[in-house]
């Protein structure tokens, strides 16, 4: 009985470990950039605690780095990996700097970086749309 179930178990494990597609990863990247933007806006309005904001920005930064690492291996043909890599790297760098500015309670510089992040957000969204179109 156990011998019969083993291949089924292995098949399920293999399928369950199937990595997300490139467009799913790009959607996730868009989500994390958007999360960082919303968390930043709330902090600038003094409507959320410093610790929450910093932790959320750090989580967004880490998630974007993880996505970038695995995404570049699975991008569909016709998408320039250097463009994707630089867009994600720029966003994650901005988010990391924003986390530091929360620590320093530096709102003016934070506002400037947040505006840059909005520009990054538009680029990442456009890239996500391109990846999705290529995958279909």
């Amino acid at each position, binding site marked *: 009985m156990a011998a019969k179930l083993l291949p089924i178990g292995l098949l*399920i494990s293999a*399928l*369950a*470990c*199937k*990595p*997300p597609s490139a467009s799913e990863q790009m*959607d*996730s990247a*868009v*989500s994390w950039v*958007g*999360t960082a*933007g*919303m*968390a930043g*806006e*709330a902090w600038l*309005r003094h*409507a*959320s*605690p410093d*610790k*929450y904001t910093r*932790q*959320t920005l750090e*989580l967004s930064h880490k998630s974007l780095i993880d996505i970038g690492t695995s995404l570049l291996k699975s991008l569909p043909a016709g998408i320039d990996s250097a463009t994707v890599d630089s867009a994600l790297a720029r966003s994650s760098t901005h988010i990391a700097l924003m986390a530091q500015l929360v620590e320093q309670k530096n709102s003016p510089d934070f506002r400037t970086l947040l505006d840059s992040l909005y520009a990054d*957000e538009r680029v990442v*969204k456009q890239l*996500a749309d391109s990846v999705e179109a290529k995958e279909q």
Partner: protein
Amino acid sequence: MKKILQITLGIITSVGGFLEIGSVTTAAQAGALFGFQLLWAIALGTICLIFLVEMSGRLAAVSKHTIVDAMRERFGFPFFFFVLIGMVLVAFLVLIAELGGIGFALQILSGLGFPLWALPVSLVVWLMMWKGTFSLIENGASLLGLVTISFAVAAWKLNPDWSSVGASLLPTLPEQDKVKYGYLAVSILGASISPYLMYFYSSGAIEDEWDRSYIAMNRVIAGFGMTLGGVLSICVLIVAAIALRPKGVQVDTFPQAALLMTTALPRWGFYLFAFSMLFACFGAALEISLAIAYFFAQGFNWNWSENLEPSKNARFAFVYTIIILVSAVPLMLHVDPIRVTMLAMALTSATLPLAIVPFLFLMNDPIYLGKYRNGWITNSVVGIVVLISFVLAIISIPLQIFGG
């Protein structure tokens, strides 16, 4: 006058106790990913829940039996034991998710990680169970849960297109992500039709010594209370669809969910969300712990009542003590409560027939209900919704898991 007060309190507690981590997470994920498109699932689940809650109260008021008592008596212990294993396993997962929800709410307020909160939160829940009475748990926690009405305020302030909201009450399929859509529909139905609520409600009716004079009151409380609660769930979905979806923000983690109301209520949205989750999950954790203890005590014919001293029903108190403390362990080991929630809600849908089909048999048995047994409308509505949930669960859960 006393009945009117009881009805008012019943409706208020139903509204305050309706939302919990499952309903908030599933509705927020659905809104963020599919806009208003999954509103029908909340509406369908709420309609089914209204019937089920009304049935639970009617069974207790007429037969003086809780669901578990009647199930064991009618179908015998071996069958009951089979149901017990399924129900308790799912309820245990839901309890982990609720305790995680409290921990996460405290995490976003304090900055201290939720694993650190797992044990203190469990101890507070246990202490409330140990020292509290049934009415304190039923009314106190639910009254605090009224802060969740802030979701309705947020939805109203975002001024949704009400014609689109109305149109989404009819099911439609998305062009993409059909598996995820199905899985979310199943999870929403599981979050709405929570069997533990039936066990809690019927046991509560016995604790409150309901008789046949409560049948009309039971109908009003179930109808109005659950409808208003369902409206709150719909509001969560609306807020997520308007505030998160345009930015592409998905609700994969709790810090992302915490941003839900910051667009509609810029100054207080973050804190209202945190306190909504804190009180809603606290109330739900108490109800689930109590429902599990009721399930064991009534099934094994032990003494049971939340109004008795623990020394007078030691085995009942022992069950909730163990179950609460064990639930804290996965959280201390960093198990993600959002993932547990989604799994628990989908499994709830998959196991619904186990809980509901025997209950439908009971509700049609003249020995227990006499002339108060179910009519064809109640049987049809509950039967069809349970069938839809089960079929969707059987199809979408494997696809979701296999799809990574």
